[in-house]
């Protein structure tokens, strides 16, 4: 029987996320067994049956590493973020949602009410004549139940608690996951606050041919057959590569899909979307206001395009309508 005590403790948690990050861990294939062998897993809701109570019972800092994926969208996720921060020596924001807010972060463009109305009333598949809404308290025969509060906005993990490392990606590629885990195991970690991914933008490892760029108009990827050899931007297809950190092994590019920006901004860039917007707009090859407007009309949904994974990381963070009683609420809450 191997000595159990020696094993470092590992926790994995999912907050507002799709579960893809969990799969990314499993995608390490047989290596997962090494992980399992090296670590004593104390929490992994998707795979193991541990209770919050058990985690709360641990001493502070007793967990060696916590891989936390998903954004913070409700009070439960916030509570667990705080608990796991307290209990963990090393807290890793795992995946784009935890790092930047991710896809769930797009909700910051709409008012809470608008979202609930859409989800609980107006989707074609919904039958809800009483317009029932989720309640935070519910008196069941067995006694009163409490449900988490659904916040007005989506937050990054480090909005709530200090984070030691960032492992971006939607989802993080197994290679990076392993690299990170290995680093942790071997104790060879970069300075806290680091992003566990390369320092350049994606274009550096993009195999496509790149020429000087001028854009007359924009194409959307589902409307044209993109030339798999040529830079997307030169084909008028918006690609986030120039503004996005490398490390994904250009998986989308290889599948002839433009980069959508899941790895977040390049080092020292504050606002990925702003950088990209500036670069793309400047490439429009015209000095005539009307022509410029026409060309840029081809950019459908700027916020969704330039901040697909980063609305909660942008300098604007959240649409004004999200704040209760904000001006222009009606306008935004379509």
């Amino acid at each position, binding site marked *: 029987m191997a000595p159990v005590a020696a094993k470092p403790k590992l926790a994995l948690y999912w907050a507002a996320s799709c579960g893809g990050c969990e799969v990314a861990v499993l995608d390490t294939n047989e290596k997962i067994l090494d992980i399992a062998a090296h670590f004593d897993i104390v929490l992994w809701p998707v795979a193991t049956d541990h209770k919050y109570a058990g985690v709360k019972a641990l001493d502070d800092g007793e967990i060696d590493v916590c891989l936390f994926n998903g954004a913070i969208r409700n009070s439960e996720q916030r509570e667990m973020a705080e608990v796991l921060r307290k209990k963990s020596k090393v807290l890793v924001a795992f995946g784009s949602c935890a790092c930047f807010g991710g896809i769930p972060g797009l909700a910051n463009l709409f008012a809470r009410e608008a979202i609930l109305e859409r989800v609980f009333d107006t989707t074609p598949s919904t039958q809800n004549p009483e317009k029932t809404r989720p309640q935070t308290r519910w008196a069941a025969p067995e006694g009163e139940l409490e449900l988490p509060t659904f916040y007005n906005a989506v*937050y990054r993990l480090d909005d709530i608690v200090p984070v030691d490392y960032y492992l971006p990606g939607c989802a993080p590629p197994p290679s990076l996951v392993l690299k990170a885990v290995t680093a942790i195991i071997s104790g060879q970690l970069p300075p806290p606050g680091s992003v566990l991914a390369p320092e350049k933008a994606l274009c550096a490892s993009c195999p496509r041919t790149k020429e000087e760029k001028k854009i007359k108009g924009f194409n959307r990827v589902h409307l044209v057959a993109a030339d798999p050899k040529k830079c997307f931007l030169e084909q008028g297809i918006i690609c986030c590569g120039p503004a996005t950190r490398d490390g994904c092994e250009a998986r989308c590019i290889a599948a002839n899909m433009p980069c959508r920006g899941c790895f*977040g901004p390049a080092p020292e860039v504050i606002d990925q979307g702003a950088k990209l917007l500036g670069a793309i707009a400047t490439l429009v090859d015209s000095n005539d206001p009307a022509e410029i407007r026409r060309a840029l009309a081809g950019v459908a949904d700027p916020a969704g395009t330039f901040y697909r994974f980063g609305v909660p990381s942008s300098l*604007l963070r959240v649409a004004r309508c999200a704040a209760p009683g904000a001006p222009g609420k009606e306008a935004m809450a379509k």
Partner: protein
Amino acid sequence: MTTPETFEPKIVGFLCNWCTYAGADLAGVSRLKYPPNVLPVRVMCSGRVEPELVLKAFWEGADGVLISGCHPGDCHYIEGNYKTLRRKELLDRLLEQFGIEKERLRLTWVSASEGDLWARVVTETVEAVRRLGPLGRTRDRLQSCDGILAADLPAGGCCHGEHPAAEGGGTGGR
């Protein structure tokens, strides 16, 4: 409570060195009086003004942003001002998606000899933003959403350098 009367908008102005900044100097030399609400930041060319700087101004609590360069065709660097024009087109739409009236971001052309025009532009802009009312700091807006955030919220991006343990690097936050 700020009313349209008592509300004094805060507007960050990006002025190109060759035309508008000189024009603003001329307005001063000519002793033309205009509202003090526009806080000038000098750049060599309006072409240097990128969205990140504009959004940063809003993040810091600007109620409006005024970009002003040379007249089309007169740019000291040939056509930097057109580049700004292109970015502004798209930026307008982005701002509106975030519920920020595009009138809060204004792009004008003022030449080195148009001191009076500068005074007029500033006055108009201040009045326009005054009518729109306060926008306030992004961080306060986010704060007010659920009231669960630390007051000095770091700005933007992936927070390298924002970590308590790491020595201050990213200029975004504090």
